[in-house]
């Protein structure tokens, strides 16, 4: 729930500060449409936009402790607040509300900044501790909730989204070329860097303490460790059974505490294994009527509605789906960038925004999803792909081993159409001793999109290598982990918070004031996932092996055994052709591209022309097309400051009523 913003140690009159805090919180008002609050005192100013979910009557923020010496502005949920509240009551703390927010201030009194280590939840908050004259900010372990800040002299400004910070005098929207290079390599910038020069992200699982002297310290309070390869053995059958039971029990508990809410909780039901077991667990824990939601696509290549109908029938939910057409993706795209606040090289966030809009229209503020299972329990194809590439690399002469590559992506027609030798050459990318080996085909294809960088931008990037930058950040123990753990670390620590949970997650859901809750990202389950031997996670080429075994009793057998179909959105083919929205040609025009200066206008013109005449763009070209277009849209919205204009154009332009279908 909610949006937060604030100031610390920035000299201005009380009136000016109130006004600025009002504008900052207004900029993230979409995150919390149910009420706003501001607290300003001495060097600090805290602001809050509320999406009320717990203690609807009394949960307003900013909120303080008994004597008003500790104040908090908080976005998110502390799911174990019931247990923590009981502990704090026993210690003599007085509570005025039934909210999880109040638990934060009282536990802070007890433990100081280390109180974060006791929270099980998704949170981003700032605490003003007037006794110690310090501002403390923290973010949840997995990076579900966002938090950005900018240093200004001895002070700082912070907010749930960057747009709040752009109201602060001295903070300007200027593109950081290194961040753009990272996005055109990994799909996201490496935290704390953002696309905005001078604006940083507080990384997941980190604490920031700012003193009035201007001293700011940032430190991690949690990190995930995998077993050393030598300890990563398949355990005895009896131990496997114990692990499966532990996983089942933790998953049920993680789901149970995520049902704590004073408003109804719905479920995203894609039809895949992860969302199906999550929905099923909710049905087991709560007997009342459950509403579920999904997005459907016109093209059979992406659409999963047959699976969704099967699950709805099996689980007995009341289901509503919304059809996301190709044209919807192109129409929503500027709004997607407005919320993602950065370029995206994939079209997948747009349907998530269409879906959250449906959920909101149906009167829901909270949805449970299966997000995180693929990272924590190794469900992504990239894990199998890396395993297979290592298998081929061990016997480079073998003609039979590479035949397996084709089996990896049965759902990708473009890949199925390729010649065997080209597949091999493509997947042979990289040296098996490289710590980034698992991700090299993806990083290499993505980096191909850099051919569009302008000569000026290339000059600024001379001497910078994004891959080396990432390699230098890996923990010392990385090289001693099993290759699967290494690949999981790259997905869980980087892609998950920096792309999946943000561009595709929080920002797309909170654009419509919808809060996602993710049982698989409960840190107890994440720690268990890291501890489970690699061979139990990917067995031969079966992904999520132990997760399936452990949770299969929650599903009808036919569904539990279904092969994986990852969430993918249709290519943005509607960005060209007769239906293309006007902004596309405008933003990709030679003059607009050259004026922004990031890309080569002639090259972009050729790409646009190619997209218009080709039925299907290759992977690299498609990523480049979206990356260039979204950077150009970003530039217009944030650097040229057209955000407000575009927003009103977007809402005044009649969006066709999406096709909504409800059944149970």
């Amino acid at each position, binding site marked *: 729930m909610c949006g937060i913003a604030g100031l610390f140690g920035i000299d201005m009159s009380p009136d000016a500060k109130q006004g600025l805090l009002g504008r900052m919180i207004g900029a993230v008002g979409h995150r919390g449409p149910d009420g706003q609050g501001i607290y300003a005192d001495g060097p600090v100013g805290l602001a809050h936009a509320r999406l009320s979910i717990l203690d609807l009557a009394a949960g307003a923020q900013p909120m303080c402790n008994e004597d008003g010496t500790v104040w908090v502005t908080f976005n998110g949920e502390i799911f174990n607040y019931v247990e923590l509240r009981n502990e704090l009551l026993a210690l003599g703390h007085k509570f005025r509300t039934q909210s999880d927010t109040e638990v934060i201030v009282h536990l802070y009194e007890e433990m100081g900044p280390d109180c974060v280590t006791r929270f099980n939840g998704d949170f981003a908050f700032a605490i003003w501790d007037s006794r110690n004259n310090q501002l403390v900010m923290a973010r949840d372990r997995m990076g579900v909730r966002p938090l950005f800040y900018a240093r200004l002299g001895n002070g700082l400004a912070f907010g749930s989204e960057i747009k709040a910070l752009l109201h602060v005098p001295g903070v300007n929207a200027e593109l950081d070329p290194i961040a753009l290079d990272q996005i055109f390599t990994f799909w996201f910038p490496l935290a704390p860097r953002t696309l905005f020069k001078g604006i940083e992200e507080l990384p997941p699982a980190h604490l920031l303490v700012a003193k009035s002297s201007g001293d700011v310290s940032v430190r991690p309070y949690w990190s995930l460790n995998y077993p050393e390869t030598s300890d990563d053995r398949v355990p005895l059958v009896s131990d496997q059974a114990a692990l499966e039971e532990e996983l089942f029990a933790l998953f049920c508990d993680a789901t149970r505490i995520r049902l704590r809410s004073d408003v109804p909780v719905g479920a995203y039901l894609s039809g895949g294994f992860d969302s199906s077991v999550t929905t099923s667990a909710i049905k087991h824990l709560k007997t009342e009527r459950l509403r579920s939601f999904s997005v459907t696509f016109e093209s059979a290549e992406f659409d999963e509605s047959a699976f969704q109908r099967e699950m709805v029938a099996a689980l007995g939910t009341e289901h509503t789906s919304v059809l996301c057409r190709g044209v919807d993706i192109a129409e929503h795209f500027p709004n997607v960038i407005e919320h993602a606040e950065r370029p995206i090289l994939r079209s997948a966030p747009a349907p998530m925004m269409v879906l959250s809009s449906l959920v909101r229209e149906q009167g829901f503020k909270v949805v449970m999803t299966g997000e995180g299972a693929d990272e924590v329990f190794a469900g992504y194809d990239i894990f199998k792909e890396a395993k297979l590439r290592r298998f081929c690399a061990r016997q480079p002469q073998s003609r039979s081993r590479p035949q397996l590559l084709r089996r990896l992506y049965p759902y990708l027609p*473009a*890949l199925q*159409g*390729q*010649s065997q*030798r*080209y*597949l091999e*050459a*493509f997947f042979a990318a990289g040296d098996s001793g490289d710590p980034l080996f698992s991700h090299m085909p993806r990083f*290499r*294809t993505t*980096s*191909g999109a850099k*051919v*569009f960088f302008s000569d000026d931008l290339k000059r600024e990037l001379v001497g910078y290598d994004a891959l080396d930058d990432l390699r230098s950040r890996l923990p010392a123990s990385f090289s001693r982990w099993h290759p699967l753990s290494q690949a999981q670390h790259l997905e869980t620590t980087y892609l998950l918070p920096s792309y999946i949970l943000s561009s595709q997650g929080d920002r797309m859901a909170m654009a419509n004031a919808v809060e996602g809750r993710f049982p698989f990202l409960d840190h107890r389950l994440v720690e268990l996932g890291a501890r489970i031997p690699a061979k139990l996670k990917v067995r031969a080429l079966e992904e999520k092996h132990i997760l399936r075994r452990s949770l299969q009793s929650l599903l009808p057998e036919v569904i539990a055994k279904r092969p994986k179909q990852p969430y993918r959105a249709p290519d943005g083919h509607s960005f060209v052709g007769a239906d293309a929205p006007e902004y596309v040609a405008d933003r990709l025009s030679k003059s607009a591209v050259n004026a922004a200066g990031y890309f*080569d206008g*002639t*090259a*972009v013109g*050729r*790409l646009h022309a*190619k997209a218009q005449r*080709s039925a299907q763009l*290759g*992977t*690299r*070209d498609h990523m480049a097309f979206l990356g260039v277009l979204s950077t150009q849209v970003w530039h217009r919205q944030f650097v040229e400051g057209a955000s407000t204009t575009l927003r009103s154009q977007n809402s005044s332009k009649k969006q066709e009523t999406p096709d909504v279908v409800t059944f149970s």
Partner: protein
Amino acid sequence: MSSLSPDIMQAVRTFVSENFLFREDRDTVGDSESLLDANIIDSTGVLELVAFLEEDFGISVADSEIVPENMDSIESISRYVERKRAQEAA
């Protein structure tokens, strides 16, 4: 090795430049450089190349010929086209 027809080389280079490199910057790719290694053509892009060769040179490309030896540099593509044309003319 026989010398390659400059016309074919030029046509292939222009196609690769305009469709994969998107610019005329000759420094970026040499005639014998691997297009796969240089990140210029990815595994889906090679099918675009095949379509171009069939349309513009009137040759027919068999699946078994879509291999890096035939398709991975401007030079190898040109050599392949010449060979095919000679075969098909014969």
